[in-house]
């Protein structure tokens, strides 16, 4: 029996009748050197099952030991989100069977999270600020990864067989849960996206995770419910998983609002369920329905002693918090004299940090900015990679800028040097050397070229001698052509005037 899903309701119509309430659960994989409860490395992309030990494989007899670096990171995240840090807390076991979970329980903080009751002010595009309450941030371990082969759309159901990779099992995770976010109306999708974006930037600034949604080191679940406008009654919520990009966060909220309104309009009721976001269609579909509601049988993890961060330590960690990314941006905006739009473009292009790093290497802000947003952005675009993933460092860009400033390179040659660096030919100076790109400023060679050009165009020489200095441009062009662009144009002009006077 198939039932046709009710049609999606037009977004504006949704808002005419319903109020959305949002909730966001974000999982962040910490970039600690080792896993949450053992000494295995956490590097992304290693050969399957090479970063495992008895503990993260859950072998009989193995025991967990808490990674202090993960606790420290969790506390710093909690503090940055204005949370209270619990002076004492235990881990719990969340019991359920799944092949990618080696112990068939997940060790997680359950009712004693390390950080509670905080907030973050989220700024929207037009400058409006929404304060998002933070319910809690807690530590837990990641599961392994399953690869289901032979079934429909990669799900375990109907798969012929599954491959398991436990490299990720036991990687430290922080789960950050918002309080319910009410009253966002039409801006719900935008608020969701802005929150996740800002959270990502915040965590990145703390240096505790690389927060790459594309690599799964940051994952987002979107909770959404609708209530009839003015009713004051909270609707039933759905939890949408597999929302793996900032854009998807926005789309998932939007889709669920339209879908739920359709169900409600048709007199149906929303089923409290887990749904999966489909990247291609931008829609959500229900997860596998369970006959019984899951009972995780939580109880305190007896293999671990409670975590009890001292007040002194918490204060010490508070002292290590960096400038908040949005405050930092404001400061940069003022220092560089950027408009809001210019700043936003830099941030969206992922260029801000790169430009800052280039400036830190001694380059003037203007040139640094111009390289990253123009030529390099174009190169990244052509290669289909993120700006930060181009094989060139801010230090190398700064060196190119310095060579131009010193007159050793002109802009055209500088671009060739950058091409060389991007092609893996080495440091800028090496590329200059190997490709022979240095500006020709040796007067001997230049004078010969200038004299040759002057001899070829006696009429122009007459004009210059007659005081029409601007006519020298034609000779400059000829010299540049003869020297394949390597001549220092300024020096060429000087020599032309000299020879004609």
């Amino acid at each position: 029996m198939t039932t046709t899903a009710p049609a999606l309701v037009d977004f504006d119509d949704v808002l005419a009748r319903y109020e959305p309430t949002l909730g966001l659960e974000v999982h962040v994989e910490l970039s600690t050197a080792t896993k949450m409860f053992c000494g295995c490395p956490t590097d992304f992309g290693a050969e399957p099952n090479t970063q495992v030990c008895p503990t993260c494989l859950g072998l009989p007899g193995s025991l967990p030991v808490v990674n202090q670096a993960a606790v420290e990171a969790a506390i710093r995240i909690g503090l940055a989100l204005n949370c209270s840090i619990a002076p004492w807390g235990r881990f719990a076991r969340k019991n359920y069977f799944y092949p990618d979970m080696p112990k068939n329980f997940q060790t997680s903080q359950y009712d004693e999270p390390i950080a509670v009751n905080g907030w973050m002010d989220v700024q929207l595009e037009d400058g409006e600020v929404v304060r998002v309450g933070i319910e809690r941030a807690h530590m837990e371990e990641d599961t392994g990864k399953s690869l289901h082969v032979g079934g429909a759309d990669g799900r375990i159901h109907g798969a012929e067989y599954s491959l398991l990779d436990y490299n990720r099992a036991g990687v430290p995770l922080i789960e950050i849960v918002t309080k319910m976010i009410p009253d966002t109306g039409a801006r719900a999708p935008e608020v969701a996206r802005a929150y996740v974006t800002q959270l990502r930037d915040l965590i990145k600034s703390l240096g505790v995770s690389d927060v790459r949604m594309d690599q799964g080191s940051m994952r987002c679940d979107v909770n959404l419910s609708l209530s009839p406008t003015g009713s004051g009654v909270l609707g039933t919520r759905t939890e949408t998983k597999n929302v793996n990009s900032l854009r998807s966060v926005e789309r998932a909220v939007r889709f669920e609002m339209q879908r739920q309104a359709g169900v409600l309009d048709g007199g149906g009721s929303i089923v409290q369920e887990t749904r999966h976001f489909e990247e291609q269609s931008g829609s959500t579909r229900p997860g596998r329905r369970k006959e019984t509601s899951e009972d995780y049988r939580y109880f305190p993890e007896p293999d671990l002693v409670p975590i009890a961060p001292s007040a002194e330590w918490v204060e010490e960690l508070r002292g290590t918090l960096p400038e908040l990314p949005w405050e930092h941006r404001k400061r940069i905006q003022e220092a560089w004299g950027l408009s809001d739009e210019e700043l936003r473009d830099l941030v969206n292009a992922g260029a801000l940090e790169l430009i800052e790093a280039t400036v830190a290497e001694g380059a003037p802000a203007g040139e640094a900015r111009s390289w990253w947003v123009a030529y390099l952005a174009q190169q990244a675009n052509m290669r289909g990679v993120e700006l930060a993933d181009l094989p060139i460092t801010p230090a190398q860009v700064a060196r190119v800028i310095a060579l131009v400033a010193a007159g050793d390179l002109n802009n055209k040659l500088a671009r060739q040097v950058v091409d060389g660096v991007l092609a893996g030919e080495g440091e800028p100076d090496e590329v200059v050397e190997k490709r022979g790109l240095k500006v020709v400023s040796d007067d001997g060679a230049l004078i010969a070229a200038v004299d040759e050009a002057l001899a070829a165009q006696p009429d122009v020489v007459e004009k210059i001698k007659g005081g029409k200095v601007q006519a020298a441009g034609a000779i400059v062009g000829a010299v540049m052509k003869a020297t394949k662009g390597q001549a220092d144009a300024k020096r060429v002009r000087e020599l032309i005037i000299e020879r004609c006077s």
Partner: protein
Amino acid sequence: MSDLTRLTAAELATRIHTGDVSAVEAAQAHLDRIAEVDGEVHAFLHVGAEAALANAALVDEAIKAGTAPASPLAGVPLALKDVFTTVDMPTTCGSKMLEGWRPPYDATLTARLRAAGITIMGKTNMDEFAMGSSTEHSAYGPTRNPWDLSRIPGGSGGGSAAALAAFEAPLAIGTDTGGSIRQPAAVTGTVGVKPTYGGVSRYGLVACASSLDQGGPCARTVLDAALLHEVIAGHDPLDSTSIDAPVPAVVEAARIGAQGDLSGVRIGVVRELGGEGYQPGVRASFDAALRRLEKLGAEIVEVSCPHFEYGLAAYYLILPSEVSSNLARFDAMRYGLRVDKGASAEEVMAATREAGFGPEAKRRIILGTYALSSGYYDAYYGQAQKVRTLISRDFAAAFEQADVLVSPTAPTTAFPIGEKVDDPLAMYLNDLATIPTNLAGVAGMSVPSGLAEEDGLPVGLQVMAPALGEAVMYRVGAAFEAARDADEGGPLIARVPEVAK
């Protein structure tokens, strides 16, 4: 040479270290003894003859080279309960689930035995995953009590205790979750010690109930147990619950105790452990033990621990709860038994667990799953934890009035095989007197106190001490042992009949 098997570990060690006997001879004598009697006793699940002789040869080489022995027990044979992981021998925990499983790592305790030069003879039989009081719940058949082969050797560590009583090894290792070291010691006329929780590392001890399990020494004399205690105890960074404190000087305490003076020592008789339910011969032996302790100069005081009566009930909620979670990992996905029945991972897991676990393991998994279920947690697990706290307080109050507490170790002598195997409640009552120490994490030991008049079978005296109070416990145990042996014309174990073949 067969009399080598009759020596105490201390005596045998002296003869090996002085070059009087080689460690290889000692190992071979015990291997011969195992070959001679273990067909009847069935103490061992696996005998590692080759590795045992290789270790012994290394000890001999070191002695020949004039190197100091690795420990006071170097070269002495030992029987290891099959619940500790060993890289060179299978580790089955008495379960079909792990038949033939070769762990890729050594337990910390195993590693310490090896580092001490102790010769590990093999792995001993046990109730499946250490759940039982008779070793009848081993998937590999019961162990028989050398005092009467038709009777049980206690459990879960019946194999280790029987190996001692049958002179198959002078030393053994057990684990004690609710009495699994002490009750087998009592019914086989041997010595068994449950150290303070956290005193001996659990890393590599396949968990039954994590908050209760404790590995400990088993021997035929108190001094031997003390020597072994000092080898295996001490902080382990791989076990979060391991205590970071110096190991109590138990060898020295045992030597002092053996001098036979207990003046100034207050011994508390727990009123609640002296009531109904004891076999007359057990009762009589205990009363005689009290008189003997008084004669040694100890002051006997009566103490009350009013919450002990709830101990058994609390234990049978906490233990199965932890078991249900600890045993979840046996799911056929990574190691151990796999029953490929059904099309999905879930079906394979279910079929494997159905086939792999015995009835007692299943019973406790079901009990624990129920006790942790939502809606029942507070009434069962939560209440049980409160009882646990109350029992700890009872102990604290009692230890204000007495240095050690005493009781009979078990309510009866060894019962016939088959008598209680189908009556779980009767079986559980065996641990009535031993369970409170596990719930409170304090130390306990069983020393032979005599033979019951009505059946001529061994009875044990339980001595309990505060956390890390093992020194006074060993002192009392050794003093009692020396006095009993002097009065009775030799050690009790000398009266064990020769195993009938």
